């Protein structure tokens, strides 16, 4: 049974200079896009994080970035780790992890169409939820559509 501190130390031992901070009740790790797969494989195989709870993205137009969030859970140690990847908003591209965690296949398809992120090497890059002819990425903050009417501000 590993504690959150031991997991943090194991990650720092394997990847010196990794950026970690505690986010209750999980440990948050920020990694480079190229190193994402390597980190996830290490977390899965060495630290028993066998469960990808979900993956999604956050649009941060102020920073010109899209932030990917992968939440992992280990049934063995009952701890969570959040792996983050920051990508530029234009031309956001990251390797797929759908072969590491099978559930990522659908989560990545969803994130791709809602946030405009390209997952390189994805086995089935068709749209998942949206109609084929919808233009734009709905969950980006600047998405506009004629059917989307802003509610009046609540004060």
């Amino acid at each position, binding site marked *: 049974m590993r504690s959150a501190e031991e997991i943090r130390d194991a990650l720092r031992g394997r990847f010196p200079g990794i950026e970690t901070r505690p*986010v*209750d009740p*999980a440990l948050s790790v920020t990694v480079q896009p190229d190193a994402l797969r390597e980190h996830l494989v290490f977390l899965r195989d060495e630290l028993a994080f*066998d*469960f*990808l*709870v*979900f993956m*999604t993205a*956050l*649009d941060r137009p102020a920073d010109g970035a899209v932030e990917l*969030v992968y*939440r992992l*859970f280990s*049934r063995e140690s*009952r701890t*969570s780790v959040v792996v983050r990847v920051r990508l530029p908003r234009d031309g956001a591209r990251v390797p797929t992890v759908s072969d590491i*965690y*099978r*559930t990522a*296949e*659908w989560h990545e398809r969803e994130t791709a169409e*809602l946030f405009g992120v390209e997952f390189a090497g994805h086995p*089935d890059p*068709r*749209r*998942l*939820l*949206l*109609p084929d*002819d*919808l233009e734009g990425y*709905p*969950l980006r903050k600047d*998405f506009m*559509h*004629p*059917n*989307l009417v*802003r*509610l009046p501000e*609540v004060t």
Partner: protein
Amino acid sequence: MNVTFGDRDEMSPSVTGITPLPAAQSTSDEFLLNVGPQHPATHGVLRVVVTMDGEVVKDIVPHIGYVHRGLEKLFENRTYEQIIPFTDRTDYLSAIANNFAYVMGVERLLGLEVPKKVEYMRVLMAELNRIASHLLWLAAYGLDMGAFTPFLYAFRDREEIGAMIEEASGGRLTTNYFRVGGFVHELPKEFFPRLRKFIARFGKAVNELDTLLVENAIFVARTRGVGVIGRERAVSYGMTGPCLRASNAAFDVRRDMPYSIYPSLDFEIPVGRNGDTWDRSWVRIEEMRQSLAILRQAMDGFPEGDHRTRAPRNIEPPAGEVYSAVEGPRGEIGFYIVSDGTRKPYRVKMRKPSFSNFSALPEILRGNKIADLVAVMGSLDLVVPEIDR
């Protein structure tokens, strides 16, 4: 935006994701079969395209999104309070579990402690909701498999839960019951006598349902060894709830990511052996028994106190993020809420069990006969609005 129908081939490779072999290379009776989006076995609007070799399923491609309402986008334009009724409508069979996960997330963002009594009320309602959901699954699954009678038995008992929940919340399905900080009203006076009667009777009723459907020889013949998924694969597909536990993986959010008063309650986590369709059914029956045990304990230990705490009138959590998960009837229901310090969330991601459970369908069904499609899909207990959100 114009969508015109009939201007493209709905079975073309770009739509189905399947490229059929040219006839010259095909050595067998390979053909494509379309099921849905309107089909009685899908229990909602979804579609699967099956590649068949004779009557054996070679491959299967699920299509979802027919009831995608863009809820996560809507949430960004609603205040925290306004979101609660929407969470009901993602999964109409476990509205209370969805309320629970969301409200708990907002309370964690606010750093709000709720009274013990509120926790007990929440657990009572969540477990009643779990039994009601499993009963509806059993009723509908019986119908899928050609057994009509269990439907009547299951609805008789489900009706009682519906009445109890209605009395407390005013709603039967989409209850919109939980509030940040507690509840609007106390439990009605008649609630506990009614619950006591229900518990006394339902213990026998579960055994009845068990022998009527799950132990039934015809049912066993149709489900044993059908639609098997092993533990490693089930975990990799992010399956949760009864579907995962049937595959011999003892993962339950109530025990593994403890919340509310569950750590102080004594209950078991039923685990299947083979991960087949029968195990998925058996686990649900067993879970109803465990829920009954939880109800009994929560009723006996029900504390005195307040049914709410002082929550701020305008909910403005400090900037930050939280992930709160509960064990719903179908598995892990999670809300990932990111706050930027205003009255509306910056982003809400809903982690829904049916989404991940359904994504494993190709893995489960490959190599089975087409007649098992209905048996397998029913055993996953899918709720489509929850998949599409």
